[in-house]
């Protein structure tokens, strides 16, 4: 798999500048909407490769919508240690057989609908230039290239290739400030269509994890399950990022309340988690998983974990400007 996009864009801009300079915001945004609805409403199954900074792993995917509109999906890694992710409506469950662990993330879409795109299209336009690229071919399907080029270096660029008819994104690549690829998803085999059956989206570890009593780390939004005032604020958020929501929740099966505040520029999101300092004090650290940068630090006897699919500097700026509202008021 090659990352040819920067070359293509450069080539175009030198060859015929008038054409390349033109962006197609309306058409581009229509494609984004089309991709979001295809990805969540279609039935499909196949194999995709996930590449991040020199590593790549292959997984199988099955995604089905039942007659009642319920959404079910299953991911299964095909290389390395076996792992599965199963989604059924609002619940995402990760099975990690080698550590006999189950991670469950539960939320209530009545109060927190999936971050729907059309509502945030204005923010996308403010922060990215939307371009329609060339045609390409992925997993045997003709697809349309749609590029989101960031207007500054506070966010990553994206290059989607959406299946011509359905709009299903067949390849998604993320580029950093220097136009280097940081992450890529691409189908290598795909069939669109097929009908729902529970078997296709059930984890093969579902029974085993129960009978062998695997450890279950359950994370959920708090019982009140609605927007919440956590008492924390970010007073220097990166340009273009707005607060999307603020909730109180549990995480990783640990007791105690954790505040989560989510910021978004319309496409990327950065979450801030605030919780009491654990017994083992965290070191200030920066790490990454693909396009997701993760920054950990301490503020006022709390552990702060900031992460999102944005450049490290953006994630750190949010983490470094987190304050208690009371402290901010005194100043």
């Amino acid at each position, binding site marked *: 798999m090659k990352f040819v996009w920067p070359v293509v864009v450069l080539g175009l801009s030198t060859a015929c500048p008038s054409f390349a300079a033109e962006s197609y915001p309306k058409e581009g945004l229509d494609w*984004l909407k089309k*991709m*979001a609805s295809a*990805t969540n409403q279609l039935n499909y199954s196949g194999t*995709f490769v*996930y590449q991040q*900074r020199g*590593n790549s*792993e292959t997984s199988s*995917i099955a*995604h089905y919508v039942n007659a009642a509109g319920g959404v079910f*999906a299953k*991911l299964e*890694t095909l290389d390395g240690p076996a*792992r599965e*992710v199963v989604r059924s409506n609002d619940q*995402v469950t*990760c099975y*990690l057989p*080698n550590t006999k662990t189950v*991670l469950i*993330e539960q939320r209530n879409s009545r109060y927190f609908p*999936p971050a*729907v795109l059309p509502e*945030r299209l204005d923010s996308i336009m403010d922060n990215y230039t939307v371009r329609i690229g060339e045609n390409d071919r992925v997993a045997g399907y003709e697809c349309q290239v749609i590029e989101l080029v960031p207007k500054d*270096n506070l966010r990553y660029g994206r290059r*989607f290739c959406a299946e011509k008819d359905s709009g299903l*994104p067949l390849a*998604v690549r993320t580029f950093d400030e220097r136009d280097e690829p940081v992450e890529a*998803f691409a189908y290598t085999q795909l069939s669109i269509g097929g009908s729902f059956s529970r078997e296709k989206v059930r984890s093969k570890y579902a029974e085993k994890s129960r009978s062998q009593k695997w450890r279950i*780390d359950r*994370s959920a939004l708090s019982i009140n399950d609605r927007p919440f005032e956590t008492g924390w604020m970010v007073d220097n958020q*990166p340009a273009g990022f707005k607060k999307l929501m603020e909730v109180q*929740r549990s995480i*990783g099966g640990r007791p105690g309340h954790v505040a*989560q505040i*989510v910021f*978004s520029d319309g496409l*990327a*999101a950065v*979450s801030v*988690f605030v919780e009491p300092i654990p017994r083992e004090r965290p*070191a*200030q*650290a*920066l*790490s*990454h*998983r693909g396009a*997701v*940068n*993760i920054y950990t630090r301490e503020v006022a006897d709390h552990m702060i*974990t900031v*992460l999102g*699919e944005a450049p*490290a*500097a953006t994630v*750190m700026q949010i983490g*470094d*400007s987190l304050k208690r509202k009371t402290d901010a008021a005194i100043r």
Partner: protein
Amino acid sequence: MEKLSALMDSELDDHEARSELARLNERPETRRLWATYHVIGDAMRGEHLLSGRFNERLAHRLAQEPTVLAPQRRPAKKLITYALSAAASLSAVAMVAWVALSTGSVTTAPQARVAEAPALTQAKPARPQVVSLPSDGRLNEYILAHQGFSPSTAIQGVTPYIRSVAAQRPAKTR
């Protein structure tokens, strides 16, 4: 001078070598002599000569190397990496990182180093020069908790969830 050439030939015992190295460290003229001896030795053996002012340039490059801020496994008192970012001011921003050797409750004087301090640039937040290491899977539950709130997940669907099942293995094996 005799001792210097003996040091080059590894003919000094530990104690002598240490005191000779200390002298070398204190006296620039002895250091230059040391360098000259090596150049002569290299030339006689027909080895490639380093370009002029190599030492200075190497030292300069080393000072410019980014600071590694990595998650630490900390079974006991170990080297802890701390970083402090003072990214508040709009006009001048400095990123200072230091490594502190922690020995119980006593912390030795930190060795401070300015990684980046752009002067008088306006409006743009500075890019801290920090190196990030691959996640070893200990923060998977946070990635999982974040994923569902991101608009990019709405476009890409369930595939990005593969990030939240990173294998639980230390970064160095990757």
